[in-house]
């Protein structure tokens, strides 16, 4: 909606005109002449610097809008501020039953389209007066010269308003034309190349074939390629060699495990309750459901629907009930003396904000206590969404057997489940007889309950009653049941502008290290703009129209020319985060993959899918660090045999005392939903891979396999890095090897010390000194930056 521009009355002229003159003097033409875009250039400034006082949260009557000005709507921004302030007074008076004050004379306008010199906004942002300058000094926010200039130019160009990009319907964008059509392998590349060509930047060269293979193997399966896989691929010169690799990888169970691992962060999966004594819980049946869903390539809309609302299906299967454990993954407290209702509300909040982050990319949490400061979301919106989750049967405080049974009701006994996923790892499914101990896993069960807005977010201060509904700014809820099942239908409806965008953005982030929107948790006003908006929409439509098929989308991404580029940094482009996509992505491997890689190359990994979480090597006393009294302490019983070597996604996840190797490599605590892992670089990480028994044992095991080879160093190097060493590298390693051989020849006891690390016995047929020396070489390579980096 475009309003006709209002004009100031004559009375307001002198002041505005005079200040406008000084403002003009200060005007410095520092931005290029390109047209100002509201969504790209203006709203981010208004949101970040102005909305805290002039945004969606106006309070009860609008009294929070300083000077009557709200800048988050077009009508508010262009209104006569005298009218706006008066309207607030009228509202206030009406509520208080007081007489309505008369409207003061005159008019004031923050924005007069086309007339920056008549716009108070310009006057105030340009002001040199500490009492007048906007934003005010006590906000600690400032506008740069360039930003002031943009705001001014925007007003001069007519102050054109536009809807927030992420709330617009998703339409399939036409594929852009490009000059270098030969480079293009698919739709993705057209969007990327057209932008590069506009910037006159050439794409990077293709990555070496071995590098691509290593990259795509790590991304899809979480494991490096084996030597046999490398040789097969390098020997395959057919046109569809890449696509054969991708098909093989996508069909492997490792793909399902890798995708599930990411989802475990999103869904805040853990094996403990998170609060106080952080006792054990049994949610692994839900985790196995996730793996199984990815194995069967369950369509994503179905995947979400079963997790959100499987219990509301007509005659739900046991597995669909297990899927609803998604909603129960948050922490819960069994602390004595807590208030039942306070915690029950807290759990419903967690379910609500998780859905907000994961399915809508919105920071719903901000609207728990007040209307949103930046986004068009109100407390009513929050509690209406919350109402879908407020009807869970669970209690807040430790209910039936909360502590003893390691599950809080409602739960189901998974050991009796006739539909236990057959995929769950080699073991025979239970026969249905009740010989197995109960495996109580938490699920959802509907229990009708009224929902009220909670004033200031306080559990004991109910306000007006609300019904289950979705945020008013998004498409109508429609004619679907007002429960979680209806919510899932609303989410996955074609007209939902956020669900598909948010999902494909996270998938892109998984493969490129950074999302097209680099704030995957926030598609609101304070979120980043997409680097390639049309590509994001194209991926979203591609995903939706192909039956929400994850594998289809992964194929599109990894078989693109964009993905195949070399990841060598191009310093001249000054694009360290690769927002232009003028090179391949590179990032440090996630925590799980660093350990899994060592297990794989060391021929240690136990390939078993699912089941209870396991307890691999962990330094003594880590769980003791929780400092729980003996009566409440859980014990870490280190596995013997296969449990030591399962993939890291099966490592027991205790929130309060996480496995140190995981948290050191930036794994989140999973106290709350997390959709992005930071990647840091610390000395403690070096200590994990230098001294962690897994890495030493894997090095020794790899050395044992390398001893008999024609060139052992070559063999272990290729196994670890999927490429042959360069001359310089070989020279450094050979020198080290020679020195280590000499050392162990002189000190046989030292070799024995190296060999005894880890539970697998050393090969008695091999010479200890030779194994230890080669193990040191393996360990050196295992600690290289390149080894733990996905290139």
């Amino acid at each position, binding site marked *: 909606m475009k309003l006709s521009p209002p004009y100031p009355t004559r009375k307001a002229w002198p002041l505005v005109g005079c200040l406008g003159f000084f403002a003009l003097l200060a005007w410095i033409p520092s931005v290029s002449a390109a047209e100002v875009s509201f969504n790209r250039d203006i709203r981010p400034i208004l949101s970040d610097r102005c909305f805290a006082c002039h945004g969606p949260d106006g309070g009860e009557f609008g009294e929070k809008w300083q000077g009557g000005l709200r800048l988050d709507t077009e009508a508010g921004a262009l209104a006569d501020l005298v009218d706006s302030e008066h309207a607030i007074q009228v509202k206030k008076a009406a509520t208080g039953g007081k007489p309505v004050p008369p409207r003061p004379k005159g008019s004031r306008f923050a924005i007069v389209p086309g007339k920056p010199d008549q716009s108070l906004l310009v006057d105030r942002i340009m002001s040199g007066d500490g009492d007048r300058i906007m934003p005010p000094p006590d906000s600690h926010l400032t506008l740069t010269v360039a930003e002031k200039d943009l705001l001014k130019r925007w007003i001069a160009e007519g102050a054109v308003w536009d809807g927030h990009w992420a709330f617009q319907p998703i339409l399939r964008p036409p594929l852009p034309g490009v000059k270098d059509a030969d480079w293009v392998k698919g739709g993705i590349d057209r969007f990327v190349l057209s932008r590069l060509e506009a910037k006159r930047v050439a794409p990077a060269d293709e990555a070496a074939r071995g590098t691509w293979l290593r990259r795509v193997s790590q991304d899809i399966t979480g494991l490096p390629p084996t030597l046999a896989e490398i040789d097969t691929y390098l020997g395959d010169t057919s046109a569809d060699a890449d696509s054969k690799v991708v098909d093989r990888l996508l069909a492997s169970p490792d793909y399902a495990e890798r995708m599930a691992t990411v989802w475990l962060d999103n869904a805040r999966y853990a094996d403990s309750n998170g609060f106080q004594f952080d006792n054990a819980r049994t949610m692994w049946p839900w985790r196995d459901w996730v793996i199984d869903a990815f194995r069967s390539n369950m369509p994503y809309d179905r995947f979400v629907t079963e997790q959100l609302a499987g219990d509301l299906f007509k005659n739900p299967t046991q597995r669909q009930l297990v899927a609803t454990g998604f909603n129960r993954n948050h922490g819960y407290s069994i602390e004595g003396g807590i208030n039942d209702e306070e915690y029950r509300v807290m759990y419903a909040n967690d379910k609500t904000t998780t859905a907000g982050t994961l399915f809508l990319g919105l920071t719903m949490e901000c609207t728990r206590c007040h209307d949103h400061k930046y986004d068009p979301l109100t407390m009513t919106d929050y509690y209406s969404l919350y109402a879908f989750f407020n009807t869970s049967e669970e209690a807040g405080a430790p209910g039936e057997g909360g502590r003893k049974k390691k599950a809080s009701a409602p739960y189901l006994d998974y050991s009796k489940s006739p539909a236990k996923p057959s995929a769950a790892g080699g073991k025979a499914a239970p026969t249905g007889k009740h010989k197995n101990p109960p495996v109580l896993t938490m699920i959802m069960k509907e229990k009708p309950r009224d929902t009220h807005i909670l004033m200031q977010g306080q559990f004991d201060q109910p306000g007006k009653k609300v019904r289950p509904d979705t945020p008013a700014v998004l498409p109508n809820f429609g004619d679907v049941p007002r429960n979680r099942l209806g919510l899932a239908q609303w989410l996955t409806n074609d007209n939902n502008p956020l669900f598909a965008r948010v999902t494909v953005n996270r998938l892109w982030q998984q493969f490129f290290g950074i999302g097209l929107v680099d704030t995957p948790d926030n598609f609101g006003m304070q979120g980043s703009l997409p680097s390639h908006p049309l590509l994001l929409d194209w991926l979203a439509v591609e995903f939706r129209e192909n039956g929400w098929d994850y594998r289809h989308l992964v194929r599109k991404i990894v078989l693109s020319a964009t993905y195949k580029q070399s990841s060598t940094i191009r310093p001249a482009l000054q694009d360290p985060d690769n927002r*232009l996509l003028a090179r391949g992505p590179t990032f440090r491997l996630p925590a799980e993959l660093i350990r899994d890689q060592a297990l794989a190359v060391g021929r240690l990994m136990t390939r078993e899918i699912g089941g209870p979480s396991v307890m691999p090597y962990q330094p003594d006393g880590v769980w003791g*660090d929780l400092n729980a009294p003996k009566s409440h302490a859980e014990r870490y019983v280190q596995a013997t045999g296969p449990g030591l070597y399962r993939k890291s996604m099966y490592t027991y996840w205790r929130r309060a005392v996480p496995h140190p190797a995981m948290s050191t490599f930036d794994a989140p605590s999973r106290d709350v939903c997390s959709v992005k892992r930071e990647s840091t670089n610390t000395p403690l990480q070096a200590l994990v891979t230098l001294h962690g028994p897994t890495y030493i044992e894997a090095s020794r095991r790899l050395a044992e396999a390398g001893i008999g080879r024609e060139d052992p160093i070559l063999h272990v190097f290729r196994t670890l890095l999927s490429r042959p060493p360069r001359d310089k590298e070989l020279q450094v390693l050979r020198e080290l090897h020679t020195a280590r051989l000499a050392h162990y020849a002189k000190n046989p006891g030292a070799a024995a010390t190296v060999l005894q690390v880890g539970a697998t016995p050393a090969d008695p047929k091999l010479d200890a000194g030779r194994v230890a020396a080669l193990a040191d070489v393996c360990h050196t390579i295992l600690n290289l930056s390149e080894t733990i980096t996905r290139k």
Partner: protein
Amino acid sequence: MHEIESTLARMSRRNALKTIGGGLGSMALGNLLAKDTGPELLCHHRPAARRVIYLFQSGGPSQLDLFDHKPALKKFHGKDIFEYVQKQGRLTGFTDKHKIHPVIDTKYRFTQHGECGSWMSELLPHMSRVVDDVCTIRTVSTTPVNHDPAMTFMQTGHGLPGRPSIGSWLSYGLGTMNRNLPEFVVMVSSGDLANMQPLNSRLWGNGFLPGRHQGVRFRSGADPVLYLKDPTGKSMQEKRQILDAINELNHEELKRSHNPEVETRISQYEMAFRMQTSVPDLSDLSDEPESTFKLYGEDARKPGTYAFNCLMARRLAERDVRYIQLYHSGWDHHFNLPDHLPKRCKETDQASAALITDLKQRGLLDDTIVVWGGEFGRTAFSQNGKVAASYGRDHHANCFTKIVAGGGFKAGLNYGETDDFSYKAVKNEVTVHDLHATILHQLGVDHERLTYLFQGRRYRLTDVHGKVMRDLLV
């Protein structure tokens, strides 16, 4: 580079970025800076203090039996004060349904100490001797009334999980002052003390800040830092040989990839190498004279004791570790307080006082803030409604005592007044956010400007609250 110089260098780099204008390059570089290359700040003003030692007494020590002298307790001993307390805010689920809430007098004698005339309980004879060196705040208030949220609130400024701890904020804001040790170290007294409350790692967690800002747990025993010890038993010379090879190969990779992460990794491997010497040096007490153990007590020889950790705290402060967090558990005395409280005091009293004295003698107290206190206090009424010699007290959030020494806090100051039952502040309340704001202020940080943009919002340690309590400062 000296801290201030490096700060200036960063500032000029950041200003340079700002003036480049809104191009993509500068945006991306800005992100890079914020991400991992170094601390964000910038001291906002000249700091009075450089480091913090936080002696956290977990469980909620009873201010009524230790610090807040209330003669009225004797007068009202056994009388029900339910009518009074129900107007003063939330009770816990333990006692909110009790019909009577009888006042229970303290069993312990209070006397005045020092020139400042501070009232202290007989349970803390050593702390009583340093009252003129510390600032005693009797009106600290918090919001949560249960342990997990109250500890989380005290350490992160918010009762729910997910926010960074104070030490992480300071690591992020101020960076490190030393080359060989982490900037944020955590130590916990070991042993199965009675009435222990668990210590969730989120209390020293980085929340939404990058992981490198999380506190590093130093443990008692031979292997104070996880994975510090090499199970293959290699000598430092052998380790150097292997590290040289790693470095050389990483340098090759750096040349090829131009990836600055490789360069960072090279320097982190070097620091990991140095830590293998610096950490054992730190916990090797053979260079401490006998007088040290006289001061801290014989317990200071035993790794894992509170006294040992206090001594370690001093050694860490000497080595310019920015934030040193100690925890001592077992202060949760719902029942049989007279059986347990004296034990906790005995374990901590001498060493707490010794640390303050020791820092003062070494000239370190001037720029080190030492904080002593728990997540809340305890009620004037009896936990179980009975008036017995083996009394206990429930959690109490309205007012409790914290002791702060050094770093520009006024020595010998007695601050804040509570009502007759130490049930609420009647003068000079200090909220948790106020305390955080004041500590940050002394470290040169404006609590309103140390922010981190997460999910579209600029988060602060003090949320949207907190004021610097200038009354407490020199």
